[in-house]
């Protein structure tokens, strides 16, 4: 490992919404070119973690560093400079309804980087091609796309600016297994080509096994276990084992009303 600072460092990050504690001393380090998959049940703070890094939420305590630079509370031009390093695929793609597909993909280039629309259009067509979508899709409205196509457009938008760090928020949720596998392999290919560092949030173990170098299990706002992806099946951690096998019985008790 080089002496360079990690691409991303979360150190003892806390975040609560009123009495509900969501992040409770979260520690995570993402190295250059590394792909970490964060697994964990719903409501364990996975999306909140990403939002804290992106400045969409402000942590109550703790340190977040990007390339060794503290980003908590950063604003204005400094925040924009840091955000240029990031790309994100949202859970439901979060495509802008008022723009066409190519305008969605080119958005970061035109509005964020100030590129001319024609040049940005060429790049967006190229990115769409990389995720398996032809130029015929480019002029469509996002409303005309299927779930799988929306995810692919979201992926094309996430990689359009060639970011150094990419977040994938449940990239295969709501897709059939074949389309899910297509998206997983697209993610692996795109990330490998860009040399980006990634954090993926998922409940999908097949996705985790395909994408991850390391897998981290988030439970009650902190990382319970982290290790290489090929060690996930013999982690020795009962929480991880219960989660990856999808068992109702185990140390993780779901809050369900039993009749």
């Amino acid at each position: 490992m080089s002496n360079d600072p990690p691409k991303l460092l979360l150190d003892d990050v806390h975040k609560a919404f009123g009495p509900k504690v969501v992040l409770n001393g979260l520690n995570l380090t993402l190295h250059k070119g590394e792909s970490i998959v964060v697994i964990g049940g719903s409501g364990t703070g996975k999306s909140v973690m990403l939002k804290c890094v992106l400045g969409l939420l402000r942590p109550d305590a703790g340190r977040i560093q990007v390339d060794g630079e503290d980003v908590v509370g950063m604003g204005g031009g400094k925040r924009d400079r840091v955000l240029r390093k990031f790309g994100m695929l949202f859970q439901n793609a979060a495509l802008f309804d008022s723009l066409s597909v190519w305008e969605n993909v080119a958005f970061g280039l035109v509005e964020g980087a100030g590129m001319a629309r024609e040049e940005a259009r060429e790049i967006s067509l190229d990115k769409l091609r990389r995720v398996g979508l032809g130029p015929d899709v480019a002029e469509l409205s996002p409303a005309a796309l299927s779930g799988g196509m929306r995810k692919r457009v979201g992926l094309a938008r996430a990689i359009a600016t060639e970011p150094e760090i990419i977040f994938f928020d449940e990239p295969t949720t709501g897709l059939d297994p074949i389309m899910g596998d297509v998206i997983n392999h697209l993610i692996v290919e795109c990330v490998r080509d860009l040399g980006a560092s990634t954090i993926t949030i998922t409940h999908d173990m097949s996705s985790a096994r395909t994408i991850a170098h390391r897998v981290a299990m988030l439970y009650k706002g902190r990382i319970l276990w982290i290790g290489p992806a090929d060690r996930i099946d013999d982690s020795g951690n009962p929480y991880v084992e219960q989660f990856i096998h999808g068992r109702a019985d185990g140390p993780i008790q779901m809050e369900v009303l039993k009749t």
Partner: protein
Amino acid sequence: MNPLAIVGRVVLGFLNTAGKLSIFTGQAVSSCFAPPVYLRLIGRQLLAIGYYSLPVVGLTAIFTGAVLALQIYIGSSRFNAESTVAFIVVIAITRELGPVLAGLMVGGRVGAAMAAELGTMRVTEQIDALVTLQTNPMKYLVAPRLIAATIAMPLLVAIADIIGVMGGYLVSVNKLDFNAATYLKNTFDVLEADDVVSGLIKAAVFGFIIALMGCYHGFNSSGGAQGVGRATTNAVVSGLILILVANYIMTDLFFA
């Protein structure tokens, strides 16, 4: 429950909302004057707020002018003062009814649309996506709507004034047998620049209020479809009430 606790909760809730709205207003206004300026988006909003509101504002104005002429004629005929119809129609339309009724109609139409659009963007993470694409949502979403509404409303009201006066003229001449030339002369004799200008200033303020309420409630919506519905209702109700309050304050300032 302790009545004091209820009062305290209501007061704290009000102060909390007032504080949030004040901060949002400050950020929104400052984002209108800071680059980048999205001219294309302002143009699109001018079209949505101004051009597409013309039919509803025009219809409201013509029927209001017509009804006003009828009612004033009926009332003034009791004192043999029928000649005042033209005076009162033009003053009432330009000073009050033009801006207020246009404000209420546009407030319902545009305030709801803004809150629903921004609310949907909020709950589908589109506003978060804007941030990750290094775009300030206040500048990209809120500022163009505020600027466009503040510009479009005076233009709409200027047109509503003309159509409203025309509504009164049509009823007076065709139904009440007024002389056309005399009616127009009376109208222009009594009309002063202040009457029109005060109405246009009111219209600009109403436009700002409509956009501010639509954006504020949409921007802060949460809780899925139900939250968007709640934001839309709140945007329209608060926008219309603020228009009526602002109208009283401005009328008091201009004419008292």
